């Protein structure tokens, strides 16, 4: 059952040195606030897992909190390269395990459902097979020949940033839901950070929109703007200027460190960060009104009579 906590408490309690971690968000709803908090608390020797490491893991790797990276696409989306990660890989400073999107999401799903492997046929034709021991082949018992399979990927912890959560940890997300469900269900434990904490009744009006159950969440932290500089649908735009600035700053190790010293270590938490960027955040938050239409969940309550 989910407990309320501050982001700083949740990170201190649940992110263990040497453990494996998945921060969710497929270019949308990326948990930057949690990443910064981990850097600030200097929790080290982490294995960082994500389909798309994005700027969030580039920063964590620049900060030196990770010893291993598990990923399927290395890019600063829409901008270019992830310099800190490239430097770490090209310099032999970090171990890594590489997947394809389809097989990493299948590996998470296998972990989520306690299966020993998942078939991932397409990987069989690639050179990646040779470089990741999480791949193997089996003989298709139905006569299809040799088929590539992937072992489960089970993070110790998933940190999930969402638009809203209720007091019990039940989560709703709209727009891009990305990798959230698979990563959270694959992980042993889940921290939810949320833009808003709403009443359970609001979620219950639309059960089809609920992505995660509170029963499977350890901690909830209210964390508005926690995805900045990435997006939250209906709430704020990506700070694309920052994505470009990071590309520039991080082109040297010193530049990346200077940023981290100033905006992570140099601040005592997310509130100070939001205060620092207040004007910019207010610009990003100017989103229009585009409400989802409604549908009727109503039932025939008299059916017990009607049926006699």
């Amino acid at each position: 059952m989910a407990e309320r906590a501050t982001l700083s408490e949740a990170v201190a309690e649940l992110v263990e040195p040497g453990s494996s971690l998945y921060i969710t968000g497929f270019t949308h709803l990326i948990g930057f606030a949690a990443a910064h908090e981990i850097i600030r608390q200097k929790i080290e020797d982490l294995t960082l897992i994500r389909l798309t490491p994005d700027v969030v893991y580039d920063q964590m790797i620049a900060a030196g909190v990770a010893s291993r990276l598990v990923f399927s696409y290395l890019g600063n989306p829409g901008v270019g390269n992830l310099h800190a990660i490239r430097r770490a890989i090209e310099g032999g400073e970090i171990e890594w395990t590489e997947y394809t999107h389809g097989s990493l999401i299948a590996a998470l799903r296998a972990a989520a459902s306690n299966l020993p492997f998942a078939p991932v046929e397409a990987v069989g034709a690639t050179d990646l097979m040779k470089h990741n021991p999480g791949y193997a082949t089996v003989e298709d018992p139905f006569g299809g020949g040799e088929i590539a399979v992937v072992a489960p990927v089970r993070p110790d912890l998933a940190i999930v940033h969402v638009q809203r959560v209720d007091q019990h940890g039940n989560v709703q997300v709209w727009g891009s839901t990305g990798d959230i469900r698979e990563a959270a269900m694959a992980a042993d434990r889940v921290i939810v950070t949320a833009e808003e904490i709403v009443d359970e009744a609001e979620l219950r009006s639309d059960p089809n929109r609920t992505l995660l159950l509170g029963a499977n969440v350890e901690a909830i932290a209210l964390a508005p703007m926690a995805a900045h500089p990435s997006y939250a649908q209906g709430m704020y735009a990506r700070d694309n200027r920052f994505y470009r600035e990071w590309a520039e700053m991080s082109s040297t190790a010193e530049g990346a460190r200077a940023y981290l010293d100033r905006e992570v270590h140099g601040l005592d938490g997310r509130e100070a960060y939001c205060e620092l960027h207040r004007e910019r955040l207010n610009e990003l938050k100017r989103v229009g009104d585009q409400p989802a239409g409604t549908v009727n969940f109503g039932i025939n309550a008299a059916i017990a009579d009607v049926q006699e």
Partner: protein
Amino acid sequence: MLTAAAGFLGNNETVLVGVGMPGQAATLAQGSHAPELTLVYESGAIGSRPARPPLSIGDPTLFAGALQSLSVADVFTFLIEGGRIDTAFVGAAEIDRLGRLNSTVIGPYESPKVRLPGSGGACEIVQYAKRSLLLSPLQERRFPAEVNFVTSAPPERAEILIVTDQCVLRRAPGGDEVELWRLYEGVEVADVDAVVGWPLRTSPELERMEVGGGIDD
């Protein structure tokens, strides 16, 4: 049976139920000692608050105002096979010494004497739930030494509780066979032995049990 079954449900548990007695037992528990129970139907209705008794597990009353609606695939993948069910109500026509269940067939599979409903989700549910809970009257034909057909087989780590109208049988987690574990008031060990189709072991934890609602509720 309902009251006894309800008594075994802890607060904060995630419980897989069906319509009829399992749903009623869970509702009973929710109304008394276990208000935080999360109910899961294999149809994908999670945390339902039905306005009237559901006619089937896909009844809109289980989805209106529910916490979550999942596809059948996602219920099986993430909740059932994910091992996120604490207690699962299951049904069966037969249960045997090893706690294996038959809800498939009586007689040969290919030319059945009685064709039963089949597994449904029972195979996966029994495999992955921390505990499976069966409600069954204590009748000789329901408790053979060996089931006619293995529809579901509990893994070693899981617990099996069989709540009958006279006693509770149990295969403990890690245990190898079903034992007599609770005896309702007015029932003797010999009464149970006379019905069960194998030499029934008695659990070292055997206790008398008072069943609030009466044994036939």
